[in-house]
């Protein structure tokens, strides 16, 4: 018998008035994310400064004392993520903020978070890599890392906002998803969105829905920390409430005790996301229905792509726009569906090809896949995206594999030399 969420499914919780600074602001994406976190009820941030995510941490530090929150600047990223895991288990909603190299350092404990089914939010304001790379400039090259970066099998949810307003909105959503599925949720923003200053409207508190933590409600002695409800997510308890928890990063059974081989129950870590994917995935679609070419993009690139798409439409091309709001879990079904209808997908991203592999996989050879790469340091030239669309619309042949569109920058750097 499952206790917990079933009983109070109907209860819709609203944000706390004190936490929401209703009004409209002219702020950057980092700050908006901090405001969003506070509105979502986040009371703890363990952080470590790293460009370009620092502003989010700073904004949280400034507001925290007024909303009953607390912050700590830890000694490194390993410490900051471990501290938020601890804070979550003592009952707080928590977030950490990082970028590039810091994200790489967090890998081990992201695995721990997934293993302990700890709901937390990680804001990664991506910069260009690898290694130190370009600290102050945009990149989108951590997308695959967010999904695969830690050892072992687990699934996470990743959201990619494209404006400061979305940084606010989707930070709240990220908290809601993490509480609902008890998994790490990553906000994969990028430097452009993080440092972009725009109007952000903070709605009234009662307009903001909050997913409460699914605390266990049954008798204490019957509590099994990893016994799932029907939706594969177990209800949670917090330390200090007398549940005699044993929570271990080792492979464990329902009780939380270590086991010596994986049980089918371990697979729940991936299944709870994979089987609930339809409920999690959010996409923005525009003129998809009769499109020949669909541009698949996310984050800041999706805003740059609009210009390229408009140019192409002006030339009479039928171009649809598919924006991934949730990047992980990947919208497999939708891409597979579209692949049968369209000629080609055009995937611009600020990396040398990551999400494009997923698009290619889900297209199952039904449509061409064109990659418009950008090494980082800036956003695409919309012209490149337009040219790629033009090419994709004209290509009659089915081309095997990913077609890489040679951008202006590529020609400038590599063809001039040779």
């Amino acid at each position: 018998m499952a206790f917990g969420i079933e009983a109070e499914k109907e209860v819709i919780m609203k944000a706390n008035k004190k936490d929401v600074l209703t009004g409209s602001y002219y702020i950057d994406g980092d700050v908006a994310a901090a405001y969003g976190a506070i509105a979502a009820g986040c009371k703890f941030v363990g952080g470590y400064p790293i460009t370009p995510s620092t502003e989010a941490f700073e904004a949280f530090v400034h507001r925290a004392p007024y909303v009953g929150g607390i912050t700590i600047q830890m000694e490194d990223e390993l410490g900051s993520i471990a501290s938020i895991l601890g804070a979550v288990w003592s009952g707080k909603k928590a977030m950490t903020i990082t970028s590039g190299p810091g994200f790489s350092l967090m890998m081990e404990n992201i695995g721990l978070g997934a293993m302990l089914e700890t709901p937390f939010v990680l804001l990664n304001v991506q910069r260009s890599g690898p290694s130190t790379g370009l600290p102050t400039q945009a990149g989108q090259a951590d997308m695959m890392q967010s999904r695969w970066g830690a050892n072992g099998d687990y699934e996470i949810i990743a959201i990619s906002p494209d404006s400061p307003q979305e940084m606010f909105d989707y930070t709240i959503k990220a908290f809601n998803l993490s509480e609902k599925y008890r998994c790490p949720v990553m906000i994969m923003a990028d430097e452009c969105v993080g440092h972009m200053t725009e109007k952000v409207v903070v709605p009234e508190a009662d307009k903001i829905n909050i997913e409460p933590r699914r605390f266990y409600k049954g008798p204490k002695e019957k509590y099994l920390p990893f016994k799932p409800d029907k939706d594969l997510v177990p209800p949670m308890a917090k330390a200090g409430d007398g549940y005699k928890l044993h929570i271990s990063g080792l492979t464990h059974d329902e009780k939380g005790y270590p086991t010596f081989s994986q049980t089918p129950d371990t697979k729940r870590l991936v299944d709870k996301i994979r089987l609930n994917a339809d409920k999690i995935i959010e996409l923005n679609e525009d003129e998809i229905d009769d499109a020949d070419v669909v541009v698949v993009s996310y984050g800041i690139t999706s805003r740059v792509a609009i210009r390229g798409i408009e140019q192409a439409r002006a030339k009479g091309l039928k171009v649809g726009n598919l924006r991934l709001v949730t990047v992980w879990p990947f919208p497999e079904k939708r891409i597979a569906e579209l692949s049968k209808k369209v000629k080609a997908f055009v995937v611009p991203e600020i990396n040398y090809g990551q999400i494009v592999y997923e698009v290619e996989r889900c297209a199952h050879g039904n449509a061409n896949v064109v990659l418009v790469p950008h090494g980082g340091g800036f956003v695409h030239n919309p012209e490149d995206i337009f040219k790629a669309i033009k090419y994709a619309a004209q290509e009659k042949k089915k081309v095997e594999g990913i077609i890489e569109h040679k951008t202006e920058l590529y020609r400038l750097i590599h063809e001039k030399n040779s």
Partner: protein
Amino acid sequence: MKIHPLFSTFANAVKKAEIESDKICLVSDFLYQPKISEYLGFDLFHVTRGRSIPFATGMKLGNPKLKVVVFVGDLITLGGNHFMHASRRNMDIVVICVNNFLYPKINGKKSPTIKSAFSPYSVFERPVNIPHVARSSRAVYVARWTALHKKELTESMTRALGKSGFSVIEVISPGNCYFAGIPASPKENELIEFYHKNSEIKNDEDTKNVEITAEKKIIVGKFFEKKRPTYIDSYNERHSKVIGDKFKIYE
């Protein structure tokens, strides 16, 4: 089930310190004895290697009412930095550092705090003087005992539990197998006897002089005690001073 004497000592200390057992939370990066939580009635978190102190930091800040106790084995390797910084901040946690002269669970590999005789590879490695590092990083309570100094250890633990601030108790005890409730091998029993015999109680000794070396006896005792505002105390004090009435005391 056989419980390591250390745990019974700890349970006694909790009783003596009159702390509600529900509020006690153990964090460890090397405990392999899951049933401890059931037997002793504490919450137990087993986290990634070396990260137990930041995890505990988060727990304490998340819910200041908890009494967070960290049991660590190889603290001074992976987690040395967290140790120093939590100590500097005076996070209100108790660290029980089981210096077992062997890496727990890892085939008896060298640990930095090891004396040359016990591990073939460590001759050229210097040991860390845990009490001295703790004191230099401003811990508020520093003690060291061997596992057989039961009475003194209980006292130390009681004191540390009752204190607010970063308290460090180094416990010298061999072999993790033993620690995990598996019967000790004769060799381990011999070792634990050896440590006990080879130790000398010197309370309030300057931590500079308590380095463990092959030449002299292991100096044990309560070395240092002080009072200092904890992180949360300073947070509340400073913020209520600067912000005034709008600030709600964090507790």
